[in-house]
């Protein structure tokens, strides 16, 4: 089957998780993505986990997950020779995604911009290409710290806390993919080459799950849910085999939860009928609710609550997520044969074009470092002697 992004050529430049995530969105939907990486292999190939905990630049979990279906060109962009190759590669492409340290990023973007039939570009960086912090190096943790998320993601008596490792870079990558595909569409239709810039701090701080807008629109007052023990059942509750989360403090969810636990009479019970009468009767509710939970597994609670359309989910670990009935029925996870590693389970399509059984999305194996040097340089018109010269000089690897 022809994939939707076939015919789109993307040059992905850099070694980070964010740019790899961005390139993956294009590659899995059929674009031809060349990953231009440093000859020694950069961050994405050095990040654990590795099979059997043995480091190997072609076997890292992030690399195998995010470089699917790409071709790899190992090229030193710190040299004029490397940039000349890049300029030829970028000619006629639709998009270049660039995540490099600031000074090199500037040179590489200039090279791409000067290419014949130059592509649109997206430059990914922690703070943007300009401004007093443009030269700062950051990582997942420090970017997160700037964006109000860490400030908010904490318990009162504990330090501020990040999300899982590298979740930040993934979101930055998706932001680059969204702006990048917008630029590609635009250029294909109006011929205007666009240069986008995704600064990680801005990409996160400008998105919806921060406290900034609530704070600013409220005139600088801390905006926290006015929830207390008076609003229930809300939050995480233990049951027979783990925990479930539910949000059923407000109408109509409270009423639905009462029906789900077989106590419809609570709906008209004077203790629970109004917002005012509920707070002092939290313990009385729990005295019925908790034993009901204790007798049931997460799955039983989940399905009973959902039968009444209560917002309720089980808390699963990733192995349980894979085995969930919905995941299995939908094929939410796929198996990819990764050379040197074997069958590996990856998350499947982020969306399905054309519904069930669509073949619009496909995750191919991740390339070895420099696996496609020869075929790419051949196609760009470099002779065998020229390729040996580049290799001898350490420009390719």
């Amino acid at each position, binding site marked *: 089957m022809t994939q939707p*992004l076939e015919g789109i050529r993307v040059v992905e430049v850099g070694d980070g998780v964010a740019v790899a995530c961005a390139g993956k969105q294009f590659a899995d939907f059929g674009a031809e993505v060349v990953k231009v990486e440093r000859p020694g292999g950069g961050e994405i190939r050095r*990040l654990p986990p590795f099979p059997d*905990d043995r480091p190997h630049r072609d076997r890292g*979990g*992030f690399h195998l997950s*995010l470089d699917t279906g790409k071709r790899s060109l190992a090229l030193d962009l710190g040299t004029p020779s490397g940039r000349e190759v890049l300029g030829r590669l970028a000619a006629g492409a639709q998009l270049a995604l660039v995540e490099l340290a600031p000074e090199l990023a500037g040179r590489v973007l200039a090279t791409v911009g000067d290419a014949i039939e130059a592509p649109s570009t*997206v430059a990914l960086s922690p703070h943007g290409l300009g401004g007093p912090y443009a030269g700062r*190096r*950051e*990582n997942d943790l420090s970017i997160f710290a*700037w964006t109000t998320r860490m*400030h908010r993601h904490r*318990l009162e008596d*504990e*330090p501020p*806390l990040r999300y899982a490792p*590298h*979740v930040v870079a993934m*979101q930055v990558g998706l932001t680059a993919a*969204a702006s990048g*595909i*917008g*630029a590609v*569409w*635009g250029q294909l239709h109006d011929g205007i080459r*666009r240069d*986008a810039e*995704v600064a990680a701090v801005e990409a996160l*701080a*400008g*998105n*919806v*799950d921060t406290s*900034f807008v*609530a704070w*600013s629109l409220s*005139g600088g007052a801390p*905006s*926290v*849910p*006015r929830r207390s023990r008076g609003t229930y059942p809300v939050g*995480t509750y233990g049951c027979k085999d783990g925990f479930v*989360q539910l*949000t059923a403090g407000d109408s109509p969810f409270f009423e639905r939860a009462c029906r789900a636990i077989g106590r419809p009479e609570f709906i008209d019970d004077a203790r629970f009928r109004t917002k005012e009468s509920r707070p002092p009767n939290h313990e009385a509710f729990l005295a019925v609710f908790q034993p009901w939970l204790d007798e049931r597994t997460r799955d039983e609670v989940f399905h009973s609550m959902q039968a009444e*359309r209560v917002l*309720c989910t*089980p808390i699963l*670990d*990733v192995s349980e997520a894979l085995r969930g*009935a*919905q995941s299995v*029925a*939908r094929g*939410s996870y796929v198996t990819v044969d990764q050379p040197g590693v074997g069958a590996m389970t990856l*998350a*499947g399509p*982020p*969306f399905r*074009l054309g*519904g069930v059984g669509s073949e619009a999305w496909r995750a191919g194996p991740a390339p070895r470092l420099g696996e496609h040097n020869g075929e790419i340089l051949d196609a760009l018109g470099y002779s065998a002697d020229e390729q040996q010269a580049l290799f001898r000089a350490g420009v390719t690897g």
Partner: protein
Amino acid sequence: MTSRALAGVRVIELCEVWAGPVGGSLLGDLGADVIKVESYPRFSPTRPLDPADWRVAPGEGPAYEHSWAQHQGNRNKRNMAIDLRREEGAAAFRRLLARADVVVDSFSAGTMEKLGFDWERMHADAPRLIRVSLPGWGLFGPYQGYVAFGGGFDCVTGHTAVRGYPWRGVEDTSPITHSDATVPLTLVFAVVTALRERERTGEGMLVDLSQVEELATQIPGILAEWTLNGRLPARVGNTEQHVAPHDCYRAAGDDRWVVLAAEDDAQWGALARAAGHPEWAEDGHPWASVVGRLREREALDRALATYAAGAEPEAIADAVQAEGGLAAPVAGPQEMLLSPQLNARGWFPTVDHPYTGPRIQAGFLWRFAPDAPSWDLPCGLVGEYNRELLREHGYDDREIDRLEADGVIGSSYG
């Protein structure tokens, strides 16, 4: 005028709360003509009637017009409010669909069908129309029609289980709405990918975007740990198993914190110099090497805690960064508003709105040249563009007056 990359693309957004509406705004930022169709007389959870509701910011007029939760995800679109359960409302909506490229809904699976808009009929009526549906659990499968919210998706993918404090139980993990930030980005990608496919085939299509599956793509490290090594990842909090130091430390000031990390020897050297202890990074010192730092992580943390406690987080970050190291203050909204970087880049726009007055907003997710994104339309009022849009779709004023008088369209709730 905002970017023109998606100029000429018309999108109907039938979404509530955050994931869908934010995606609509991002499409609007890129130049799509986005029409937000709100339900009527039923109102969205982000449009509370009660001025005491915690989501309502100070302002004039009805509470639902100055809820920050509504303002957070609704720029650059034109709002209508239509009762789709009424035949005249459904008829108006069909006219909108006939001239649209894309319709996006975030209902649970089956809701559109109950409203009379099953895909087969939509496709027959408007063969080039693309429908992107974002039900939490997807359009098919045994959980079809189950209800959900952002925090719940986080629970079922495995993220909640690993993002809490290492020393606390999973039950002490704060709920987050991470998917409300990632799904809109994927929605933009899905819309353009579908438009591209339509160019090839000439036909519209149904796109099934399960928010659970979307979020599952965002945690590859957690999945890889299991699938490569059969291990469930541990809760590591602010640390990294293979990087020391890498943590959040209490700084001087009232509940102020700073993050410090050194991913390699060079960054460690920078941190050591900033802390006034260059000897920590000199050959022979037990902390000078990657392995030495891992082995003595606790002693290192104690030393850095002492350093951090001596100054405000911004001063520490400036000093460490000046040496080439890695550090950042844990910023709340106020500290973010004072960021020299965001201010130098003119990132915070001031947006005027009839009911809140001018307010400082969070800026755009990306910059674009030559056609930069701009905030052309602030958060729309209920039914603000009913008349304009119905006229665009062939209704005359008398017909519009009648729809209004009959309560098929509206411009207020409650």
